[in-house]
């Protein structure tokens, strides 16, 4: 039975299903590193997913669809930044507002503009001559759509930016000690605007990876909590892109197993399989909260002269 469960296709779908988690959680890492808890991710993902889906539905081009998701995500990020940085609104509650907005708005637009469930032709699987044909290895690693590779490529890039560039240093300074950063001449608000917009853009991309690459459909509440898990994954990954990647893989592995167990009919109530990632997240949060890596100024608005 073990061989039936841990097949190459499970590992292949683990990599595939990790895509939205990685995009969303790496983006959120930027935001949280700079001190902004961007809780509206779920809503932004839904908007990005719809924007991409509708554009592909209307134009047939996945590239334009991708662009639409990036633009919508960036705009939602800009709105989030305005709310949490300029207006200094409480980040948790305003994030719920953004979530509700995205949830209602994406459904509204879907019902109004499309109406019936349809599927589209999303990103095709890339065939890499030579590699894709290797048995097992080829199926696991070289048989995915473009966005899967992009997600995995994003991790080292994000780690480099955060750890090895001036911009990364500014992000960390602003999240750790905004007063000191301000005194050193760093524009705290501008850095936070940038990170929150990055988070929004990547959340839009995460949504697109669901609606035009993984599932190729859109429906009400398509993300069903994935965006909230992504926020928690950043705690889980101890505010590092690599940690976030590991967390994403763990979650997508559980998802993939759950699908596999369902398909071969093992007698485990599916509810427990669905529940597992959430329970793991809660347990992970208990351990994450003790760590010192948490940005000190997370959720704290910065006001000059206080």
């Amino acid at each position, binding site marked *: 039975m073990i061989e039936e469960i841990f097949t190459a296709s499970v590992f292949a779908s683990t990599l595939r299903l990790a895509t939205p988690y990685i995009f969303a959680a790496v983006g959120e890492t930027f935001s949280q590193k700079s001190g902004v808890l961007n809780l509206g991710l779920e809503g932004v993902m839904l908007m990005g997913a719809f924007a991409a889906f509708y554009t592909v539905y209307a134009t047939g081009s996945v590239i334009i669809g991708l662009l639409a998701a990036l633009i919508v995500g960036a705009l939602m990020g800009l709105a989030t930044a305005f709310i949490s940085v300029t207006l200094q609104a409480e980040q948790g509650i305003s994030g719920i507002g953004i979530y509700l907005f995205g949830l209602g708005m994406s459904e509204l637009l879907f019902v109004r503009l499309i109406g019936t469930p349809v599927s589209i032709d999303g990103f095709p699987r890339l065939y890499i001559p030579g590699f894709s044909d290797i048995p097992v290895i080829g199926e696991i690693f070289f048989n995915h759509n473009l966005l899967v590779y992009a997600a995995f490529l994003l991790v080292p890039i994000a780690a480099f930016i955060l750890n090895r560039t001036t911009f990364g240093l500014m992000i960390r300074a602003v999240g750790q000690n905004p007063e000191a950063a301000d005194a050193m001449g760093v524009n705290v608000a501008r850095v936070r605007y940038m990170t929150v917009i990055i988070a929004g853009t990547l959340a839009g991309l995460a949504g697109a990876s669901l609606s035009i690459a993984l599932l190729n459909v859109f429906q009400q509440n398509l993300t069903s909590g994935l965006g909230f898990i992504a926020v928690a994954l950043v705690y889980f990954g101890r505010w590092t892109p690599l940690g976030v990647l590991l967390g994403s893989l763990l979650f997508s592995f559980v998802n993939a197993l759950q699908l596999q167990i369902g398909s071969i009919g093992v007698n485990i109530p599916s509810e427990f399989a669905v529940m597992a990632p959430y329970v793991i997240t809660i347990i992970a949060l208990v351990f994450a909260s003790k760590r010192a890596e948490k940005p000190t100024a997370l*959720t704290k608005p910065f006001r000059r002269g206080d």
Partner: protein
Amino acid sequence: MNFRRLINSLLDTTPYVLALLAALGVASILLIALNAPPLQAVGAIAQGAFGTENATAETLVKATPILFVAIGISVAFRGGVTNIGGEGQMIAGALAGVTVALAIPQAPGFVIIILSLLVGFAAGAFYGGIAGALKAYFNVNEILSTIMLNQVAAQIMNFLLNGVLLDPSELGSNAIPKTARIVEAAELPRLSIPLPPGLSDLFGTAELFGRTRLHWGLVIAIVLAIITYILLWRTIIGYRIRAVGQNERASRYAGINIQRNILLSMLLSGGMAGLAGVVQVLGLQYRLQTDGSATGFTGNAGFNGIVAALFGGLNPIGAIPASVFFGGLLVGAQKMQRELGIPASMVTAINGVIVVFVVSAQYFVHRRSRRRSVGGAPPEREPTAPIVPAPLETPS
């Protein structure tokens, strides 16, 4: 009340008025973009919400669970705990309440009702208490833990409704996940208002709401709102909860047990949401039924309760009109959808906008209060407090 206090208290309501106007503005833009005349849409919502006796009753029925949750959210937010777990706590309460009601069908009706309510409150409190304890003793972000617990609760509900709690008559067939019906004696009575002769001519009926689904849950919720108001502002228990929410450090120096009060506010908050769940079962559905998602049972009341609580100024009394308002919005939106073809999900989007505007408007209140304290230091504001609560008064 002297003149200055009057002015100040009027100014305190401005953020809510502004938030509402701004949301109305966004809604109008949206409607115009969707090619629907805004005035007609607002008219349809108002008609659908309060146009007839039955519409008003449906609005109040919808407002009932929202009010229960909003009372609980008010307590939690006042205590500095951002409880997003209304959905899960409602489910916990409903599951426990319906189990009690199904377990003792022979008992007298009032015994079943009271026991169900108590056990439902306890279950909701326990479920909220998990997140409360995790925050108080393990420093776990309660926003994230409550969101995760919502999903867990939905799955526990699915598991139980497909298993031990499944209606026996559904066995074997393509089962709809639902429990058996509770006995008639355990139903919360319908609520109707007998009218004196003069008024009955005016309304054209001797008994207002006589043939509607309105039930006593609304009365229980209003009484609970009043009790909670007294608890928060007239007892030492409420004083401590609010003190912790307002300024954790100062409360610690004052000798208040921070951890215990965080837990307490989550227990109370979860309990109220639990009651929302039981009352939905006993007063309206007479069984627990879902479509597989959390909202299949709760109708999103766990989130709408947050909106209503914020709009009610985190005051249980203020939550009463706020809940009726949002209940009306949800019921009225159905009519808008039928008449103008605008999907009712627009209300969800607008609720989000209202939340954002209400918490953003706090910024302007805060700036005003900073200006008020001329010469002195700006008022201490703990960043963990979700909203700036009214200044502390000592309990009388």
